[in-house]
Every structure is written in C-alpha cells, then in structure tokens.
C-alpha cells in the first residue's frame, strides 16, 4: 500500500469544508510553522525533503525557492500553477475539487517561506466549477484566521486569490502563466531572468504546481527526514499518477515513487490490467509530451531491469529506450490502438496550443499535423516519415519555451519505436488496424 500523503482523507465526505478538514488535523502545519520556524528554515526543510516539482519538470522545489531574490523591498509573489492541461493529466483537479484546504494550507506555508503577502492560484478557465469550490474554501480560511491580517497572531499577513485562465495550454509554462496573470497573451518570456528574480509585475516570484504545494503541510508536520525516507534514489515521496486509456481501473493513484511499472499496470490495487484482457501495446508515461514506449520497454529497461515509477528509472536509457515521469499522466494503449492516430491527436493539440512566438514551433507543429493527417488517411509517402523526424529535430531546442520540445518528442519516439506502423499506413493506404 502506498504512503498516503495526498489522498489519505480524499474519500471522507465533506472534506472540502473547513470543519471536516480541520477536525482531521488540517491547518496544524500552519500553527506549527508560524510559531516554530523562520521563513528560511521552511525553505531549508523543503530542500532537505527532496520534494521535486510535480508539474512535469521535476525540478527540486526547495532549490527553486532558494533562488528568490530577498535583497530588495519589492513585493514577492507565490503563485500556484493550476493550469492542468497536459493531455493524460487530471490529478490537480482531484485535489482542488475534493481537498481545497490542503492546497490553501500549502499556499500559506510557501507564501510564508518566500515572504509573499499576496498569492494567486491560477486555474484553467474550463475548471470554473473547481474555482468556485476553492474560493469558498478561501473564504472559510479567512473567517477562521488562517488568511488575512496577522495570521494566528504571528504578525504574518497573507491574501490569497483565485485567477481563471481562458483556454491556453501554454499558460502552464510558468512565464506564460505570469504574462497571463498580468492580463496579457500567454507568450512565454525568454529566461534568464528567471521568475525568482523578475516575475509577476517584475517582482521576485515562485510558481509551483498544485501537487507540489499540497505536499507541504505533510512535510512541515512530519519533517523533511520522514518525507525523504519515502521513495527511491532522488525520487522522494509519493506521486499522484493519473491513469487513463485502455485499463480496467482508470483514476488517480498515489504511489510511493519506486513502484514497479508492471505492478502499477497489472495489480488490482492500481490500474487492474488491460481492458477486456487485451495485450498491452504502448504507454505514454508522463503526459502527452513525453516519449511513448512500447510494452517491452515500459515494463523493463533496455538492460532488462524492471522499470520503476521514478524520475530515474523511467528516464533510464535516455530517449533511445527511456521516457520521463513528467506530470504522471499515464496513458495506456492496448493492441487495438493506432499509434499514428493517437500521435495525430497529440500533434493537433500542440499545433492548436502553440502561442505562435517562435517560427519553428508555430510552423513546425502545423506541418507535423498536416503530414500525420496525410499518413493516417492513407495518402502518405515513405519520405514523409523522415520528413517528420527532420521537422521534429528542427523544433527541438530551438524555441523560447519547452512547448516545442513537447511537440517534437512524441513524434520522434513514435517513429523510433513504431516505424513499421507508419510504413504499413503508407503501403496499405489505410490504417492497418481498422477492419
């Protein structure tokens, strides 16, 4: 059974209300932290815990906090990235909808550590029904003295607000999110300067994912050492995995990092095996942006070691034979799924979501979609396959933000591992899997 840091109370009725949450020990980490820890000691604790950013990049959270510029009198901002839009990922919605106070509690801790007096939760516009739940919880936190002036008599004051997006995947990129929060188009900024130096309203800012922030109360309650004792290698703690596609039990699972992939897919405790007893064909393990792997490489590394659900094990073998943990969006495909068509839906997505600033991404994502559509509809030629690889190569690394890479990696990996399936589409002039 996984360690339950994030979902231990998730099934308790009324958890979204302050009363129920508080009765279960909620907000105790705020009482403890404001009394016993200086802001820098909180940052040190998070550093020591080994918590890594759960939005996809996996950057150490405490280190990111350590970069914040505290040398000036400028306001500092702490922003929650709730722009969950990576195809295959639906874990943050689960927290926001069912356990909003845990997110708010984490926001208070992070804001205190960074010295932020105003903090924002940037939530994708489609999730307005979740925004309303969080706003209600924020009101309750104000009424009970956990937000507002002089929290618990500590002298520390904090205002917390929700801010809706309006349908733009790119705003999950932290500098695009900041632009959007300033009321502009979501065009990513060139880094450096990093947001920790020049962020929201040109002030020092830290942006963290919902799940990252939701871990903070547990870490402050139980200590960094207890958190670091969970997991494996440099993959500390637990991770929410959003499992979808051709499995018997789609849903959100909290796993201890280091769980074997095979157990995650086939155990009844998690995905419960492949739907209708079919054969596993491929997995996209960390949201649509990460390389797709065929069954044999997702279950075992190229060296024959069992593949584990951890940052290190999933990336073992590099992009030749590995992938990434990413956001934990785990998309499972059985033997009936067409790799080309699935890729086409991803490529249409990236084309639609490209902000248009950088030519390689703006133009390249359109070409990829067009060529994949040609192949998928039986009108492709063999040279289209190499053309796709070439376009992907020219996007990767040549854009301001990682959306370009995210659009390129799925294409390159699908061709690397499933080239025959592309060739069959071209030879048969139709999808080889359609009857």
């Amino acid at each position, binding site marked *: 059974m996984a360690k339950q840091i994030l979902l231990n109370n998730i099934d308790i009725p009324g958890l979204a209300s302050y009363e129920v949450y508080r009765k279960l020990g909620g907000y105790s980490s705020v009482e403890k932290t404001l009394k016993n820890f200086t802001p820098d000691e909180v940052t040190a604790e998070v550093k020591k815990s080994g918590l890594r950013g759960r939005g996809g990049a996996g950057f150490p959270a405490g280190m990111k906090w350590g970069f914040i510029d505290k040398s000036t009198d400028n306001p500092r901002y702490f922003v929650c990235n709730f722009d969950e839009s990576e195809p*295959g990922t639906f874990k943050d919605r689960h927290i926001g909808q069912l356990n909003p106070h845990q997110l708010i509690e984490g926001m208070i801790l992070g804001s205190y550590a960074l010295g932020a007096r105003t903090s924002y939760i940037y939530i994708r516009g489609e999730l307005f029904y979740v925004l309303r739940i969080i706003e209600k919880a924020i009101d309750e936190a104000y009424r009970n003295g956990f937000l507002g002036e002089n929290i618990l008599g500590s002298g520390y004051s904090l205002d917390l607000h929700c801010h809706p997006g309006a349908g733009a995947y790119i705003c999950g990129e932290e500098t695009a999110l900041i632009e959007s929060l300033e009321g502009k188009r979501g065009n990513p900024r060139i880094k450096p300067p990093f947001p920790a130096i020049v962020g929201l309203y040109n002030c020092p800012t830290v942006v963290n994912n919902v799940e990252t922030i939701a871990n903070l109360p547990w870490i402050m309650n139980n200590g960094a050492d207890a958190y670091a004792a969970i997991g494996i290698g440099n993959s500390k703690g637990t991770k929410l995995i959003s499992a979808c596609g051709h499995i018997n039990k789609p849903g959100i699972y909290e796993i201890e990092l280091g769980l074997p992939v095979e157990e995650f897919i086939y155990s009844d405790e998690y995905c419960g095996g492949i739907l209708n007893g079919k054969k596993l064909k491929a997995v996209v393990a960390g949201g649509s942006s990460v390389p797709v792997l065929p069954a044999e490489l997702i279950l075992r590394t190229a060296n024959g070691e069992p593949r584990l659900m951890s940052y290190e094990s999933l990336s073992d073998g590099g992009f030749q034979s590995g992938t990434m943990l990413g956001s934990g969006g785990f998309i499972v495909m059985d033997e009936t799924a067409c790799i080309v068509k699935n890729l086409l839906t991803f490529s249409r997505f990236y084309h639609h979501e490209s902000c248009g600033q950088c030519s390689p991404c703006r133009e390249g994502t359109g070409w990829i979609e067009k060529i994949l559509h040609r192949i998928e509809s039986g009108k492709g030629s063999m040279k289209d396959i190499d053309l796709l690889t070439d376009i992907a190569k020219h996007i990767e690394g040549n854009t301001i933000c990682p959306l370009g890479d995210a659009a390129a990696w799925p294409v390159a990996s699908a061709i690397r591992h499933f080239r025959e399936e592309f060739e069959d589409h071209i030879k048969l002039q139709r999808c080889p899997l359609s009857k």
Partner: protein
Amino acid sequence: MQSNTNNIEFNSETLALVNRIILRYPQGKQKSAILPVLHIAQAENNGWLSAETMDYVASLLDIQPIEVYEVASFYSMFNLQPVGNCMIEVCQTGPCWLKGSEEILAHFEKRLGIKPGETTADGKYSLKAVECLAACGNAPVIQVGTEYHEKITIEKADELLDKWQAENKCSHTNPYL
C-alpha cells in the same frame, strides 16, 4: 443568432463583483482582471464577445480597447462570433479519442445537423471540438458552460440533449455564481 448592436452594461451586482475582482491585484495592475472580467462579459453577452462588449471591458479596466482585443483573440474560451444558446464542447485529444470521442462527436453532429464550429439554424446549439479538458480518467468528456459531463456514451449524449431541449438550456451563465 444574437444581434451585435446591443450596448452591454453590467447591473450593479455584477459591477460589484467586477470591482471586488479588480481589488485582488495591486493598485495600477487592474489589467490583471482582464480574463475574469471577459469571462463574465461573455456570459452576459449570450456567450460571445462583440467589439462593443470588449470596449466596455476596456473602459471598466481603464485600458485601451486593443489590449482587450489582443487578449480575447488569444484564448480559445473566448468566442469572437455569435454562438448558440447552448455550446457543447467535445474533447478530441488522445485519451478521449482512445475511449471513443470521435463517435460521440459524430453523434452530436448527426443529432444537431451541424459540424463543429457551427450553430443550429434556430440558434439553440453550437458544437465545438476542443482539446484536452483534463478529465481523461473519465473519458470521453464534454463541457457545457461550467459543467463537465464525463464517461459519455451515445445513450448519455441522447439523454443530455433531450434534457437540454426540454429545459431550453443556456450555457452562458456568470461563471462566478
């Protein structure tokens, strides 16, 4: 179809909400309220942003109209053309496609007699194919206003359509309420 000659103006209750939202941002940074206020304005203007509506938002936020136009045209939730009373958005990205979203979209097309991006002649429904709604565990997923409907089947789609037809469904409601 709605006429686009209306002059939009919020009632006092909505104006109070807008002013509360503006106060969430530092003084002089009221432009930050543009997305929340555009959401409200779109709902009040039958689901789309006319030039007059965007100009009104610009005046509320004390910014230039162009600053509103360039933002409204960037974000896919904002409609710059009139739409039907009830906008049905069907997710088409990988995880929903794996679970049959193409059949669901085709069924809505057949029942409504329109293609994605179109509105029925009576102005009641618009259909839109959208990208990932981040509810992939319950694929296929559709969105209507601020409601999600998950694990959609042909039968469930029919039930919903019949229900919306009976209640003359409008999906353009103030998302904050």
